[in-house]
Protein backbone atom coordinates (compact mmCIF):
# COMPACT_ATOMS: atom_id res chain seq x y z
CA UNK A 1 0.00 0.00 0.00
CA UNK A 2 2.79 2.38 1.00
CA UNK A 3 4.59 1.63 -2.25
CA UNK A 4 1.38 2.28 -4.14
CA UNK A 5 1.08 5.67 -2.47
CA UNK A 6 4.72 6.69 -2.82
CA UNK A 7 5.58 5.28 -6.25
CA UNK A 8 4.24 8.22 -8.29
CA UNK A 9 6.39 10.72 -6.40
CA UNK A 10 9.67 8.97 -7.11
CA UNK A 11 9.41 10.52 -10.56
CA UNK A 12 10.52 14.19 -10.44
CA UNK A 13 7.88 15.06 -13.04
CA UNK A 14 5.07 13.85 -10.78
CA UNK A 15 6.68 15.36 -7.71
CA UNK A 16 6.84 18.80 -9.37
CA UNK A 17 3.20 18.38 -10.42
CA UNK A 18 2.29 17.58 -6.80
CA UNK A 19 4.01 20.73 -5.54
CA UNK A 20 2.16 22.72 -8.22
CA UNK A 21 -1.27 21.35 -7.28
CA UNK A 22 -0.60 21.89 -3.56
CA UNK A 23 0.21 25.56 -4.26
CA UNK A 24 -2.77 25.99 -6.59
CA UNK A 25 -5.02 24.14 -4.14
CA UNK A 26 -4.06 26.40 -1.23
CA UNK A 27 -4.70 29.47 -3.38
CA UNK A 28 -7.88 28.21 -5.03
CA UNK A 29 -9.39 26.86 -1.82
CA UNK A 30 -8.93 30.05 0.20
CA UNK A 31 -9.68 32.52 -2.60
CA UNK A 32 -12.60 30.39 -3.74
CA UNK A 33 -14.46 31.03 -0.49
CA UNK A 34 -14.58 34.74 -1.32
CA UNK A 35 -15.41 33.99 -4.98
CA UNK A 36 -18.42 32.00 -3.78
CA UNK A 37 -19.57 34.63 -1.28
CA UNK A 38 -19.07 37.56 -3.64
CA UNK A 39 -20.87 35.55 -6.36
CA UNK A 40 -17.93 35.86 -8.74
CA UNK A 41 -17.92 32.31 -10.12
CA UNK A 42 -19.32 33.42 -13.49
CA UNK A 43 -16.85 36.31 -13.72
CA UNK A 44 -13.95 34.01 -12.83
CA UNK A 45 -14.98 31.46 -15.44
CA UNK A 46 -15.43 34.21 -18.04
CA UNK A 47 -12.01 35.72 -17.36
CA UNK A 48 -10.35 32.30 -17.58
CA UNK A 49 -11.95 31.58 -20.96
CA UNK A 50 -11.45 35.05 -22.38
CA UNK A 51 -7.68 35.12 -21.95
CA UNK A 52 -7.22 32.26 -24.48
CA UNK A 53 -6.25 34.54 -27.41
CA UNK A 54 -3.48 36.02 -25.28
CA UNK A 55 -2.15 32.57 -24.47
CA UNK A 56 -2.30 31.49 -28.12
CA UNK A 57 -0.53 34.62 -29.37
CA UNK A 58 2.17 34.18 -26.72
CA UNK A 59 2.54 30.55 -27.75
CA UNK A 60 2.86 31.52 -31.43
CA UNK A 61 5.37 34.26 -30.62
CA UNK A 62 7.38 32.06 -28.28
CA UNK A 63 6.76 34.47 -25.39
CA UNK A 64 6.09 33.37 -21.82
CA UNK A 65 2.47 32.24 -21.45
CA UNK A 66 2.06 34.36 -18.33
CA UNK A 67 2.75 37.50 -20.39
CA UNK A 68 0.23 36.49 -23.05
CA UNK A 69 -2.31 35.58 -20.39
CA UNK A 70 -1.91 38.96 -18.69
CA UNK A 71 -2.40 40.75 -22.01
CA UNK A 72 -5.43 38.56 -22.69
CA UNK A 73 -6.92 39.48 -19.33
CA UNK A 74 -6.50 43.19 -19.99
CA UNK A 75 -8.11 42.90 -23.45
CA UNK A 76 -10.98 40.83 -22.01
CA UNK A 77 -11.59 43.30 -19.17
CA UNK A 78 -11.62 46.25 -21.61
CA UNK A 79 -13.92 44.43 -24.05
CA UNK A 80 -16.36 43.56 -21.26
CA UNK A 81 -16.29 47.16 -19.98
CA UNK A 82 -17.03 48.56 -23.46
CA UNK A 83 -19.72 45.96 -24.30
CA UNK A 84 -21.32 46.43 -20.89
CA UNK A 85 -21.96 50.11 -21.66
CA UNK A 86 -24.37 49.21 -24.46
CA UNK A 87 -27.73 50.09 -22.89
CA UNK A 88 -29.71 47.54 -24.90
CA UNK A 89 -27.94 44.49 -23.45
CA UNK A 90 -27.32 43.65 -19.82
CA UNK A 91 -23.91 43.11 -18.24
CA UNK A 92 -24.28 39.32 -18.22
CA UNK A 93 -25.10 39.26 -21.92
CA UNK A 94 -22.16 41.54 -22.66
CA UNK A 95 -19.82 39.21 -20.77
CA UNK A 96 -21.21 36.17 -22.58
CA UNK A 97 -20.79 37.81 -26.02
CA UNK A 98 -17.23 38.96 -25.32
CA UNK A 99 -16.15 35.66 -23.77
CA UNK A 100 -17.60 33.59 -26.59
CA UNK A 101 -15.95 35.89 -29.13
CA UNK A 102 -12.54 35.75 -27.47
CA UNK A 103 -12.67 32.00 -26.87
CA UNK A 104 -13.61 31.50 -30.51
CA UNK A 105 -10.80 33.79 -31.67
CA UNK A 106 -8.34 31.90 -29.52
CA UNK A 107 -9.48 28.55 -30.94
CA UNK A 108 -9.31 29.96 -34.49
CA UNK A 109 -5.71 31.08 -33.98
CA UNK A 110 -4.73 27.86 -32.28
CA UNK A 111 -6.26 25.63 -34.94
CA UNK A 112 -4.66 27.39 -37.90
CA UNK A 113 -2.33 25.13 -39.91
CA UNK A 114 0.83 27.02 -38.89
CA UNK A 115 0.17 26.79 -35.18
CA UNK A 116 2.25 24.38 -33.08
CA UNK A 117 0.04 21.61 -31.67
CA UNK A 118 -0.35 23.13 -28.19
CA UNK A 119 -4.06 23.89 -28.12
CA UNK A 120 -4.79 20.98 -25.80
CA UNK A 121 -2.18 22.24 -23.33
CA UNK A 122 -3.70 25.70 -23.36
CA UNK A 123 -7.25 24.49 -22.96
CA UNK A 124 -6.71 21.64 -20.53
CA UNK A 125 -3.34 22.46 -19.00
CA UNK A 126 -0.25 20.35 -18.59
CA UNK A 127 0.42 20.03 -14.92
CA UNK A 128 2.94 17.25 -15.57
CA UNK A 129 4.93 19.62 -17.74
CA UNK A 130 5.56 22.33 -15.17
CA UNK A 131 9.16 23.45 -14.82
CA UNK A 132 11.06 25.11 -12.02
CA UNK A 133 9.99 28.55 -13.24
CA UNK A 134 6.32 27.52 -13.06
CA UNK A 135 6.80 26.27 -9.50
CA UNK A 136 8.45 29.50 -8.44
CA UNK A 137 5.58 31.42 -10.00
CA UNK A 138 2.97 29.24 -8.28
CA UNK A 139 4.77 29.61 -4.95
CA UNK A 140 4.94 33.38 -5.32
CA UNK A 141 1.25 33.48 -6.26
CA UNK A 142 0.32 31.44 -3.21
CA UNK A 143 2.30 33.74 -0.92
CA UNK A 144 0.82 36.89 -2.48
CA UNK A 145 -2.79 35.67 -2.53
CA UNK A 146 -2.81 34.13 0.95
CA UNK A 147 -0.96 37.16 2.39
CA UNK A 148 -3.38 39.58 0.72
CA UNK A 149 -6.40 37.57 1.87
CA UNK A 150 -5.12 37.61 5.46
CA UNK A 151 -4.65 41.39 5.35
CA UNK A 152 -7.93 42.03 3.56
CA UNK A 153 -9.97 39.61 5.69
CA UNK A 154 -11.78 42.21 7.87
CA UNK A 155 -12.55 44.38 4.85
CA UNK A 156 -13.77 41.43 2.74
CA UNK A 157 -15.99 40.38 5.64
CA UNK A 158 -17.47 43.85 6.22
CA UNK A 159 -18.22 44.53 2.54
CA UNK A 160 -19.41 41.01 1.76
CA UNK A 161 -21.74 40.83 4.76
CA UNK A 162 -23.29 44.28 4.57
CA UNK A 163 -22.22 46.25 1.50
CA UNK A 164 -24.60 49.15 2.24
CA UNK A 165 -22.98 49.84 5.63
CA UNK A 166 -19.37 49.44 4.46
CA UNK A 167 -18.77 53.19 4.10
CA UNK A 168 -20.02 53.82 7.64
CA UNK A 169 -17.53 51.21 8.83
CA UNK A 170 -14.69 52.94 6.98
CA UNK A 171 -14.37 50.50 4.11
CA UNK A 172 -14.74 51.25 0.41
CA UNK A 173 -16.80 48.57 -1.33
CA UNK A 174 -15.26 49.62 -4.67
CA UNK A 175 -11.68 49.27 -3.37
CA UNK A 176 -12.44 45.84 -1.89
CA UNK A 177 -14.12 44.70 -5.13
CA UNK A 178 -11.11 45.85 -7.17
CA UNK A 179 -8.64 44.15 -4.79
CA UNK A 180 -10.58 40.88 -4.94
CA UNK A 181 -10.85 41.14 -8.74
CA UNK A 182 -7.07 41.59 -9.03
CA UNK A 183 -6.45 38.55 -6.81
CA UNK A 184 -8.84 36.43 -8.87
CA UNK A 185 -7.14 37.56 -12.09
CA UNK A 186 -3.70 36.76 -10.64
CA UNK A 187 -4.86 33.34 -9.51
CA UNK A 188 -6.31 32.54 -12.94
CA UNK A 189 -3.20 33.80 -14.68
CA UNK A 190 -0.93 31.41 -12.82
CA UNK A 191 -3.28 28.46 -12.32
CA UNK A 192 -4.12 28.38 -16.02
CA UNK A 193 -0.55 27.22 -16.73
CA UNK A 194 -1.18 23.98 -14.87
CA UNK A 195 -4.90 23.36 -15.20
CA UNK A 196 -5.63 25.05 -18.52
CA UNK A 197 -8.09 27.53 -19.80
CA UNK A 198 -11.21 25.41 -19.36
CA UNK A 199 -10.48 23.60 -16.09
CA UNK A 200 -8.95 26.35 -13.96
CA UNK A 201 -12.33 27.50 -12.66
CA UNK A 202 -12.86 24.08 -11.08
CA UNK A 203 -10.15 24.69 -8.48
CA UNK A 204 -11.47 28.20 -7.80
CA UNK A 205 -15.10 27.24 -7.21
CA UNK A 206 -15.65 23.54 -6.45
CA UNK A 207 -13.60 23.23 -3.20
CA UNK A 208 -15.24 26.30 -1.64
CA UNK A 209 -18.71 25.25 -2.78
CA UNK A 210 -18.16 21.78 -1.28
CA UNK A 211 -16.74 23.19 1.97
CA UNK A 212 -19.70 25.56 2.31
CA UNK A 213 -22.01 22.57 2.52
CA UNK A 214 -20.26 21.04 5.52
CA UNK A 215 -19.03 23.98 7.60
CA UNK A 216 -20.69 26.75 9.64
CA UNK A 217 -17.90 29.32 9.94
CA UNK A 218 -15.66 31.07 7.44
CA UNK A 219 -12.36 29.97 9.04
CA UNK A 220 -13.33 26.28 9.00
CA UNK A 221 -14.75 26.67 5.50
CA UNK A 222 -11.42 28.00 4.22
CA UNK A 223 -9.44 25.22 5.92
CA UNK A 224 -11.76 22.52 4.52
CA UNK A 225 -11.73 24.12 1.04
CA UNK A 226 -7.91 24.13 0.97
CA UNK A 227 -7.82 20.51 2.19
CA UNK A 228 -10.33 19.44 -0.50
CA UNK A 229 -8.44 21.29 -3.24
CA UNK A 230 -5.07 19.80 -2.27
CA UNK A 231 -6.49 16.30 -1.76
CA UNK A 232 -8.29 16.40 -5.11
CA UNK A 233 -5.09 17.60 -6.78
CA UNK A 234 -3.22 14.59 -5.39
CA UNK A 235 -6.09 12.18 -6.23
CA UNK A 236 -6.13 13.52 -9.79
CA UNK A 237 -2.41 12.89 -10.12
CA UNK A 238 -2.80 9.35 -8.76
CA UNK A 239 -5.55 8.73 -11.29
CA UNK A 240 -3.37 10.12 -14.04
CA UNK A 241 -0.46 7.90 -12.96
CA UNK A 242 -2.31 4.64 -12.45
CA UNK A 243 -5.18 4.96 -14.95
CA UNK A 244 -3.25 6.92 -17.57
CA UNK A 245 -5.86 9.67 -17.71
CA UNK A 246 -5.22 13.35 -18.51
CA UNK A 247 -3.91 14.99 -15.35
CA UNK A 248 -5.79 18.32 -15.54
CA UNK A 249 -9.09 16.64 -16.38
CA UNK A 250 -8.54 14.07 -13.59
CA UNK A 251 -8.01 16.84 -11.04
CA UNK A 252 -11.09 18.71 -12.24
CA UNK A 253 -13.10 15.48 -12.15
CA UNK A 254 -11.99 14.78 -8.56
CA UNK A 255 -13.02 18.33 -7.56
CA UNK A 256 -16.47 17.95 -9.07
CA UNK A 257 -16.90 14.54 -7.38
CA UNK A 258 -15.90 16.12 -4.05
CA UNK A 259 -18.61 18.75 -4.54
CA UNK A 260 -21.17 16.08 -5.42
CA UNK A 261 -20.16 14.05 -2.33
CA UNK A 262 -20.46 17.12 -0.09
CA UNK A 263 -23.97 17.67 -1.41
CA UNK A 264 -24.93 14.17 -0.32
CA UNK A 265 -23.88 14.89 3.27
CA UNK A 266 -26.31 16.61 5.63
CA UNK A 267 -25.89 20.37 5.23
CA UNK A 268 -24.24 22.22 8.11
CA UNK A 269 -26.61 24.62 9.86
CA UNK A 270 -25.77 28.18 8.84
Amino acid sequence: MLHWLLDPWSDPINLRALVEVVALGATGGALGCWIVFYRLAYSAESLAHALLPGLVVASLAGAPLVVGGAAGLVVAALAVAVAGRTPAIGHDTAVAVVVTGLLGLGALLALSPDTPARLQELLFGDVLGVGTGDLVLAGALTAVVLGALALLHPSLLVVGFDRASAAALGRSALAVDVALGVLVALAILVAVQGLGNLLVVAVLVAPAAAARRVTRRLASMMAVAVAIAVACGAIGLYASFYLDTASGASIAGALVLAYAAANMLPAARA
Partner: protein
Amino acid sequence: MPDRGAVSRAEPDPAGAPGALSPRVSPSSDVAVACEGVSLAYGARTVLRDVTFAVRRGERAAVLGPNGGGKTTLFRALTGELEPVAGRVIAPGRCGVVPQTERSRLDFPVSALDVALMGAVSRLPWWRRPGRADRAAAHAALERVGLDAMADETFGDLSGGQRQRVLLARALVQDARVLLLDEPFSGLDTRSTDLVMGLLDDLAAEGRTLLIATHDVDQARAWDLVLCLNGAQVAFGPPGETLTLPTLERTYGGAIVELPGGGGHGVLPPHHHDH
Protein backbone atom coordinates in the same frame (compact mmCIF):
# COMPACT_ATOMS: atom_id res chain seq x y z
CA MET B 1 -20.88 71.34 -13.78
CA PRO B 2 -22.97 71.75 -10.68
CA ASP B 3 -21.58 73.39 -7.61
CA ARG B 4 -20.36 70.41 -5.61
CA GLY B 5 -21.36 70.18 -2.00
CA ALA B 6 -19.14 69.23 0.87
CA VAL B 7 -19.04 66.80 3.74
CA SER B 8 -17.38 68.18 6.82
CA ARG B 9 -16.03 65.51 9.14
CA ALA B 10 -14.87 68.05 11.72
CA GLU B 11 -16.85 68.94 14.82
CA PRO B 12 -19.52 71.42 13.80
CA ASP B 13 -19.02 75.07 14.53
CA PRO B 14 -22.51 76.53 14.77
CA ALA B 15 -21.11 79.90 15.75
CA GLY B 16 -19.54 80.14 12.31
CA ALA B 17 -22.88 79.92 10.55
CA PRO B 18 -25.50 81.54 12.74
CA GLY B 19 -28.94 81.27 11.29
CA ALA B 20 -27.80 79.01 8.47
CA LEU B 21 -29.22 75.95 10.15
CA SER B 22 -32.73 75.36 11.35
CA PRO B 23 -34.12 78.40 13.16
CA ARG B 24 -34.52 76.31 16.29
CA VAL B 25 -30.75 75.86 16.63
CA SER B 26 -29.02 78.67 18.43
CA PRO B 27 -25.33 79.37 17.77
CA SER B 28 -24.43 77.98 21.18
CA SER B 29 -26.29 74.72 20.78
CA ASP B 30 -24.44 71.41 20.84
CA VAL B 31 -25.05 70.24 17.26
CA ALA B 32 -24.09 66.63 16.58
CA VAL B 33 -25.18 66.26 12.96
CA ALA B 34 -26.52 68.81 10.50
CA CYS B 35 -27.24 69.56 6.85
CA GLU B 36 -27.22 73.00 5.25
CA GLY B 37 -29.09 73.29 1.96
CA VAL B 38 -28.08 69.78 0.95
CA SER B 39 -29.15 68.33 -2.41
CA LEU B 40 -28.31 64.77 -3.40
CA ALA B 41 -28.27 63.08 -6.79
CA TYR B 42 -27.56 59.77 -8.47
CA GLY B 43 -25.80 60.78 -11.66
CA ALA B 44 -27.85 63.54 -13.30
CA ARG B 45 -31.01 62.67 -11.33
CA THR B 46 -31.53 64.76 -8.20
CA VAL B 47 -33.40 62.66 -5.65
CA LEU B 48 -33.39 64.94 -2.60
CA ARG B 49 -33.33 68.75 -2.49
CA ASP B 50 -32.91 71.56 0.01
CA VAL B 51 -32.38 69.65 3.23
CA THR B 52 -31.50 71.84 6.19
CA PHE B 53 -31.64 70.56 9.73
CA ALA B 54 -29.54 70.18 12.86
CA VAL B 55 -29.82 67.60 15.62
CA ARG B 56 -28.09 68.09 18.96
CA ARG B 57 -26.33 65.53 21.15
CA GLY B 58 -28.71 63.21 22.94
CA GLU B 59 -31.65 64.04 20.66
CA ARG B 60 -33.74 61.49 18.78
CA ALA B 61 -35.03 62.55 15.40
CA ALA B 62 -37.54 60.60 13.33
CA VAL B 63 -37.02 60.73 9.57
CA LEU B 64 -40.42 60.30 7.95
CA GLY B 65 -41.21 59.85 4.30
CA PRO B 66 -42.58 57.46 1.69
CA ASN B 67 -40.49 54.76 0.02
CA GLY B 68 -38.23 56.59 -2.41
CA GLY B 69 -38.70 59.83 -0.47
CA GLY B 70 -34.97 60.17 0.22
CA LYS B 71 -34.50 58.71 3.72
CA THR B 72 -31.87 56.14 2.77
CA THR B 73 -30.22 58.59 0.37
CA LEU B 74 -29.89 61.12 3.22
CA PHE B 75 -28.29 58.43 5.40
CA ARG B 76 -25.81 57.64 2.62
CA ALA B 77 -24.81 61.31 2.59
CA LEU B 78 -24.44 61.40 6.38
CA THR B 79 -22.07 58.41 6.28
CA GLY B 80 -19.98 60.11 3.59
CA GLU B 81 -20.83 57.47 0.97
CA LEU B 82 -22.67 59.99 -1.21
CA GLU B 83 -21.33 63.49 -1.74
CA PRO B 84 -23.88 66.30 -1.92
CA VAL B 85 -24.22 68.12 -5.24
CA ALA B 86 -25.07 71.25 -3.26
CA GLY B 87 -24.94 72.29 0.36
CA ARG B 88 -22.95 70.97 3.29
CA VAL B 89 -23.18 67.95 5.59
CA ILE B 90 -21.76 68.38 9.06
CA ALA B 91 -21.08 65.08 10.84
CA PRO B 92 -18.68 64.24 13.65
CA GLY B 93 -16.45 61.44 12.46
CA ARG B 94 -18.32 58.41 11.19
CA CYS B 95 -21.97 57.83 11.83
CA GLY B 96 -22.94 54.32 12.91
CA VAL B 97 -25.48 52.61 10.68
CA VAL B 98 -28.08 50.08 11.79
CA PRO B 99 -29.62 48.83 8.52
CA GLN B 100 -32.70 46.70 8.06
CA THR B 101 -31.56 43.18 8.84
CA GLU B 102 -32.67 41.72 5.53
CA ARG B 103 -30.23 44.00 3.73
CA SER B 104 -27.32 42.06 5.24
CA ARG B 105 -26.29 38.66 3.91
CA LEU B 106 -28.14 36.09 5.98
CA ASP B 107 -26.27 33.25 4.24
CA PHE B 108 -22.86 34.48 5.44
CA PRO B 109 -21.25 31.98 7.86
CA VAL B 110 -20.69 34.53 10.63
CA SER B 111 -21.70 34.45 14.29
CA ALA B 112 -23.39 37.24 16.24
CA LEU B 113 -19.98 37.96 17.77
CA ASP B 114 -18.36 38.21 14.32
CA VAL B 115 -20.97 40.78 13.28
CA ALA B 116 -20.59 42.85 16.47
CA LEU B 117 -16.82 42.72 15.98
CA MET B 118 -17.18 44.35 12.56
CA GLY B 119 -17.87 47.58 14.44
CA ALA B 120 -14.22 47.59 15.56
CA VAL B 121 -13.04 47.57 11.93
CA SER B 122 -13.95 51.24 11.54
CA ARG B 123 -11.35 52.15 14.17
CA LEU B 124 -8.55 50.05 12.66
CA PRO B 125 -6.30 50.53 9.61
CA TRP B 126 -7.29 48.23 6.73
CA TRP B 127 -4.56 45.69 7.36
CA ARG B 128 -5.22 45.20 11.10
CA ARG B 129 -7.54 42.57 12.53
CA PRO B 130 -9.59 43.24 15.65
CA GLY B 131 -7.71 42.23 18.82
CA ARG B 132 -8.53 40.98 22.29
CA ALA B 133 -9.78 44.37 23.53
CA ASP B 134 -12.10 44.59 20.52
CA ARG B 135 -13.50 41.12 21.28
CA ALA B 136 -14.15 42.20 24.86
CA ALA B 137 -15.93 45.30 23.55
CA ALA B 138 -18.02 43.13 21.19
CA HIS B 139 -19.03 40.82 24.06
CA ALA B 140 -19.92 43.85 26.20
CA ALA B 141 -22.04 45.30 23.39
CA LEU B 142 -23.85 41.99 22.90
CA GLU B 143 -24.46 41.80 26.62
CA ARG B 144 -25.92 45.28 26.52
CA VAL B 145 -28.41 44.26 23.85
CA GLY B 146 -29.19 41.09 25.82
CA LEU B 147 -27.57 38.65 23.42
CA ASP B 148 -24.14 37.71 24.82
CA ALA B 149 -25.44 34.20 25.54
CA MET B 150 -26.05 33.87 21.79
CA ALA B 151 -22.66 35.25 20.72
CA ASP B 152 -21.72 32.02 18.93
CA GLU B 153 -25.03 31.60 17.14
CA THR B 154 -25.02 32.04 13.37
CA PHE B 155 -26.38 35.49 12.49
CA GLY B 156 -28.74 34.14 9.85
CA ASP B 157 -30.29 31.73 12.37
CA LEU B 158 -31.37 34.51 14.74
CA SER B 159 -34.86 36.01 14.73
CA GLY B 160 -35.45 39.40 13.10
CA GLY B 161 -35.47 41.17 16.46
CA GLN B 162 -32.28 39.46 17.58
CA ARG B 163 -30.54 40.33 14.32
CA GLN B 164 -31.61 43.96 14.73
CA ARG B 165 -30.07 44.00 18.21
CA VAL B 166 -26.83 42.41 16.93
CA LEU B 167 -26.56 45.19 14.31
CA LEU B 168 -27.15 47.69 17.09
CA ALA B 169 -24.32 46.03 19.04
CA ARG B 170 -22.09 46.49 15.99
CA ALA B 171 -22.80 50.25 16.08
CA LEU B 172 -22.05 50.28 19.83
CA VAL B 173 -18.67 48.61 19.23
CA GLN B 174 -18.02 51.27 16.61
CA ASP B 175 -18.69 53.76 19.41
CA ALA B 176 -20.40 56.10 16.98
CA ARG B 177 -21.83 59.22 18.57
CA VAL B 178 -24.46 59.51 15.85
CA LEU B 179 -26.53 56.45 14.95
CA LEU B 180 -28.60 56.17 11.76
CA LEU B 181 -31.29 53.52 12.14
CA ASP B 182 -33.20 52.38 9.06
CA GLU B 183 -36.68 51.27 10.14
CA PRO B 184 -35.40 49.49 13.26
CA PHE B 185 -38.87 48.31 14.31
CA SER B 186 -39.84 46.88 10.93
CA GLY B 187 -41.04 43.29 11.37
CA LEU B 188 -40.38 43.17 15.12
CA ASP B 189 -42.85 41.72 17.60
CA THR B 190 -44.00 43.79 20.57
CA ARG B 191 -41.39 42.39 22.96
CA SER B 192 -38.49 43.05 20.57
CA THR B 193 -39.88 46.52 19.80
CA ASP B 194 -39.97 47.34 23.52
CA LEU B 195 -36.42 46.03 23.97
CA VAL B 196 -35.04 48.07 21.06
CA MET B 197 -37.03 51.14 22.14
CA GLY B 198 -35.59 50.90 25.66
CA LEU B 199 -32.08 50.58 24.24
CA LEU B 200 -32.54 53.66 22.07
CA ASP B 201 -33.77 55.63 25.09
CA ASP B 202 -30.64 54.58 27.00
CA LEU B 203 -28.36 55.52 24.11
CA ALA B 204 -29.94 58.95 23.81
CA ALA B 205 -29.68 59.43 27.60
CA GLU B 206 -25.91 58.87 27.41
CA GLY B 207 -25.58 61.61 24.79
CA ARG B 208 -25.75 59.72 21.51
CA THR B 209 -27.73 61.25 18.69
CA LEU B 210 -30.23 59.04 16.90
CA LEU B 211 -31.78 59.51 13.46
CA ILE B 212 -34.50 56.92 12.95
CA ALA B 213 -36.04 56.35 9.53
CA THR B 214 -39.59 55.15 10.03
CA HIS B 215 -43.06 55.01 8.51
CA ASP B 216 -44.76 55.00 11.90
CA VAL B 217 -46.22 58.48 12.38
CA ASP B 218 -47.44 57.81 15.90
CA GLN B 219 -44.09 56.42 17.00
CA ALA B 220 -42.44 59.58 15.66
CA ARG B 221 -44.47 61.61 18.18
CA ALA B 222 -42.33 60.03 20.92
CA TRP B 223 -39.07 61.43 19.51
CA ASP B 224 -37.61 64.91 20.09
CA LEU B 225 -37.64 65.99 16.44
CA VAL B 226 -39.18 65.00 13.13
CA LEU B 227 -37.70 65.47 9.66
CA CYS B 228 -40.22 64.97 6.84
CA LEU B 229 -38.85 64.15 3.38
CA ASN B 230 -40.51 63.60 0.04
CA GLY B 231 -37.90 64.27 -2.62
CA ALA B 232 -37.20 67.49 -0.75
CA GLN B 233 -37.43 68.59 2.84
CA VAL B 234 -41.08 69.11 3.75
CA ALA B 235 -40.67 70.05 7.41
CA PHE B 236 -38.32 69.84 10.36
CA GLY B 237 -38.96 70.54 14.00
CA PRO B 238 -40.55 69.17 17.17
CA PRO B 239 -43.38 66.65 16.63
CA GLY B 240 -45.99 69.12 17.88
CA GLU B 241 -45.11 71.51 15.03
CA THR B 242 -44.37 69.05 12.22
CA LEU B 243 -46.84 66.20 12.63
CA THR B 244 -49.83 68.12 11.32
CA LEU B 245 -52.23 66.69 8.77
CA PRO B 246 -51.23 69.13 5.97
CA THR B 247 -47.52 68.37 6.50
CA LEU B 248 -48.09 64.64 6.55
CA GLU B 249 -50.20 64.86 3.39
CA ARG B 250 -47.38 66.74 1.66
CA THR B 251 -44.88 64.19 2.96
CA TYR B 252 -46.76 61.12 1.81
CA GLY B 253 -48.52 62.60 -1.20
CA GLY B 254 -51.84 61.32 0.09
CA ALA B 255 -54.40 61.97 2.78
CA ILE B 256 -53.68 61.02 6.37
CA VAL B 257 -56.64 59.58 8.18
CA GLU B 258 -57.30 58.73 11.80
CA LEU B 259 -57.80 54.99 12.00
CA PRO B 260 -60.90 53.83 13.86
CA GLY B 261 -60.58 52.52 17.38
CA GLY B 262 -57.55 54.64 18.25
CA GLY B 263 -55.41 52.65 15.81
CA GLY B 264 -53.22 55.61 14.94
CA HIS B 265 -52.84 57.21 11.49
CA GLY B 266 -52.97 55.73 8.04
CA VAL B 267 -52.00 57.10 4.63
CA LEU B 268 -54.41 57.13 1.69
CA PRO B 269 -52.99 57.08 -1.83
CA PRO B 270 -53.06 60.46 -3.64
CA HIS B 271 -56.09 59.68 -5.85
CA HIS B 272 -58.27 59.33 -2.75
CA HIS B 273 -57.27 62.82 -1.77
CA ASP B 274 -57.76 64.28 -5.23
CA HIS B 275 -61.32 63.13 -5.64
